[in-house]
């Protein structure tokens, strides 16, 4: 390239300072909407529905109400969709409505060490922002908090610079509805079926939320009802204090600043879990600090020493009652109600810990029936009951399944790949802090502790599948083989009659007669043979002992 000298005009710091300005979160996400899952039109549709449905279920669970929802997606023209989501939750009080839907990072869960679907308070307002960006239409929200109260209606935009609501219309209505929220959004999007579509997302959501009843109308005007498979509301997860091993330096420094504790000793004991006075003293001494140091007075290098000393201290694992797994029975039930198969099993592991965060793995397996035996098994991944549809290959779940030897359980598998067979495997990780590989929350990071737990869960399901295959499927194959005799008989008779000049039909007749007599026996005998083979080893051992005696 030809070099061209440009006139360089220097700018002073003062001049530059004039250009600096505070950017609001809304304005930031307006520019960076892909960070919120709005990279393309089909993913946008999924993300909007996902955020609204997550909120629906979270709200109902918080209020201890069995969730019941309606999702309607209406196609307005080729790229425009109207999305309506309605719930039977506790409703949102009038004063909070504008903030919940029109202020990003407004939420109740942020920073709580508690298992929940959403965390940052971005979901609903992010969807509103996307709608506004692509269609210029306001969000419509109806909310009612109790039977004897009025329903409130808002039509509003997000004021991107102020990160707050700009109300266009406000009404009070009378309805017969008891309580709940209804949201309506218009967006630019594309509707697709298949592995990463909204339909699949809702099917999977209903699998990990057996207590959810959902009716769904898709853009093709097909009505699908996901029935409630269990009347048990999930155990309410408890918030836990941070565990010393799962706290990062920056977080520790913020905690030190904000702590209400007067001295280090009580800071460690009150603001963390699992630290008693002995451990607290040990940590403090090792960090060359004293028990009476004021937390907010700690210098940076002191905080760093404290951090190091905390990581080295022997602290028992955090309590695990903060987790709310689906449970073996309910997981099984909901898989049964959503997937047509022949064999089902599920496993819920005991809670355990990675990096100071409690987590728990559950796995449910469905096999045979209408599932395709020629393809790789289908894996459904869930984190805190939310389906993960993107980035499958980057996920710890897939890694664990690939590392498992499925040939031992009767499936085909080439090493390092997913097995092949008529199987769906649903894997759920419940944790106060699910380690995603990226902000988009699409794949679980490869922590060895997590992979190990997933493997153990998946292997147990596999073992049960293996037993089933050996017992039933092989028997069925035997029967199929036995049915081949019918087909073999004419072949045998025709070859034989060519050798001997014996009448072919006479031979067929005799063979068929014999087959009729033998068929039940043939199947039974062969099954017996098979059992003998398994027991044979045992029997033989017994005999060996007897002969040596």
């Amino acid at each position, binding site marked *: 390239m030809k070099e061209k000298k440009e006139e360089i005009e220097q700018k002073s710091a003062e001049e530059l300072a004039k250009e600096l300005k505070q950017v609001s979160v809304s304005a930031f996400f307006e520019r960076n909407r892909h960070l919120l899952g709005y990279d393309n039109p089909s993913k946008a549709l999924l993300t909007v529905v996902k955020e609204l449905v997550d909120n629906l279920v979270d709200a109902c669970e918080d209020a201890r109400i069995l969730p019941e929802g309606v999702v309607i997606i209406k196609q307005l023209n080729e790229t425009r969709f109207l999305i309506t989501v309605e719930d039977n939750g506790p409703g949102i009080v009038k004063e909070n409505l504008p903030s919940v839907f029109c202020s990003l990072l407004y939420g109740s869960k942020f920073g709580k060490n508690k298992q929940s679907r959403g965390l940052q308070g971005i979901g609903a307002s992010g969807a509103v922002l996307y709608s506004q960006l692509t269609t210029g239409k306001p969000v419509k929200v109806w909310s009612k908090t109790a039977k004897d109260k009025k329903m409130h209606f808002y039509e509003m935009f997000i004021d991107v610079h102020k990160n707050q609501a700009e109300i266009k219309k406000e009404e009070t209505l009378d309805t017969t509805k008891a309580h709940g929220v209804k949201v309506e959004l218009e967006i630019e999007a594309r509707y697709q079926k298949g592995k990463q579509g909204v339909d699949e997302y809702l099917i999977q959501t209903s699998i990990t939320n057996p207590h959810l009843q959902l009716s769904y109308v898709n853009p093709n005007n097909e009505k699908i009802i996901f029935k409630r498979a269990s009347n048990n509301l999930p155990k309410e997860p408890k918030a836990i204090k941070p565990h010393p091993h799962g706290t990062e330096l920056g977080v520790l420094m913020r905690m030190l600043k904000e702590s209400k504790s007067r001295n280090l000793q009580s800071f460690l004991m009150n603001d963390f879990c699992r630290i008693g006075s002995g451990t607290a003293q040990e940590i403090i001494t090792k960090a060359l600090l004293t028990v009476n140091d004021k937390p907010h007075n700690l210098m940076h290098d002191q905080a760093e020493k404290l951090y190091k000393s905390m990581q080295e201290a022997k602290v028992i694992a955090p309590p695990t009652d903060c987790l709310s797994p689906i449970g073996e029975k309910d997981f099984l039930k909901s898989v049964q109600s959503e997937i047509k198969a022949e064999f089902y099993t599920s496993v819920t592991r005991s809670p355990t810990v990675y990096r100071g965060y409690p987590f728990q793995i559950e796995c449910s397996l469905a096999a045979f029936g209408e599932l395709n035996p020629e393809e790789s098994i289908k894996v459904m991944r869930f984190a805190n009951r939310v389906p993960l549809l993107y980035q499958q290959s980057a996920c710890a779940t897939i890694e664990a399944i690939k590392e498992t030897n499925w040939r031992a359980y009767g499936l085909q598998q080439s090493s390092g790949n997913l097995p092949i067979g008529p199987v769906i495997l649903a894997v759920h990780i419940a944790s106060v802090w699910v380690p995603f590989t990226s902000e988009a929350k699409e794949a679980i990071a490869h922590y060895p502790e997590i992979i190990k737990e997933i493997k153990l869960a998946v292997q147990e399901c596999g073992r049960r599948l293996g037993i089933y295959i050996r017992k039933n499927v092989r028997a069925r194959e035997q029967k199929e083989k036995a049915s081949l005799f019918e*087909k073999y008989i004419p*072949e*045998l008779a025709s070859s034989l009659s060519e*050798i*001997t000049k*014996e009448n072919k039909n006479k031979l067929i007749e005799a063979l068929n007669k014999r087959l009729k007599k033998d068929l039940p026996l043939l199947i039974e005998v062969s099954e017996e043979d098979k059992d003998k083979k398994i027991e044979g080893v045992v029997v033989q051992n017994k005999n060996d002992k007897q002969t040596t005696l």
Partner: protein
Amino acid sequence: MTKEKPIEKIKELGASISKQILKGDNPAIDVPIRALSNVFFDKKSKTLQLGESSSKRSFFNIAHAKKFLQTVEVAKIEKDLLDSGKHASLRDVFYMAKRTIPNTSVNLVDMQQESDEIIQDLELISGLSREQLHVNANKMGSVAGNVVIEDRGDTIDWGKLGSGGWSIPSNVEEIKFKKVNANFVLYMEKAAIFERLLEDKFHEKQKGIILSSQGQTTRGIRRLLQRLYEEFELPIYVLADLDPWGAYIYSVIKYGSINLAFFSKKLTIPSVKYLGITCNDVERYNLKKNLIKLKDTDIKRMQQIADYEWFKDNKEWQNEFKIMKKWGAKAEIQALSARGISFITDKYLPEKLKNKDFLE
């Protein structure tokens, strides 16, 4: 073997199956077992012999049904061949039997290996070799020497066939020897050595018949060697690599093979001698630099062979195995080329023959 016409044997088999069927029985065929477990070393004849064990192959048995059907099908094909007087190759038989059974996704045979095995089973069932049943294997191997034969009406001089020699057919039963002028037969496992000796006119200089295969010795070659030994009392010598595979080639000619134990009488030559390569040759001709390291599979196979009943008491061979193991190495015949390309023709073989330096 049997004086009955081959076609009668096949018909007998068919008749026995038909009879069982019409009686309402589950039709079954007795198939002698071809495996080490059913082979024994007959010390008197010094050959491998087939034992008495056989397995019952019945039609109404899920595990046997297909094999039963295959057996009858191949028997039918052999009967057609005998009827028409034509000969087929193993591959031909595979294609003649291969088809999908109507209304199923099952093929009567999927691989040639399956039909080949049935052909071997039928040999044992009928007591006839596959060649007698008009099924031939591929030609493998060549021969040269001062011999004139007659084959299907053609007169062939083994000494006048240029650089290729006469290629040995699978069935040598019908060959007539018109003139045999030789002092010995030298069989070698490598075609490359055969070509060397042919070019050097070794067979003329030493008055011998030279004969080679490529790898395992086929039945045609074994039968030809045996006929030369029995009909003309020619001593037979084997030239093979000094490794377990070479040892086994020798063993098959001398004692017979597990698969063909049933035909030992027609195929084995107990008086055959092993000419080389031996460990002693390696020392004497200074070939130690030309050895090849033994692989794990070599060592394993060597142990297997050393443990065979017919090798156990063979002190000379046990000694060879011991030395090979000690060296951790084996030697190819071609190692002799290190001493000059015609060293084998001019020095090695004449010396070995003159000194009668053989292994038993």
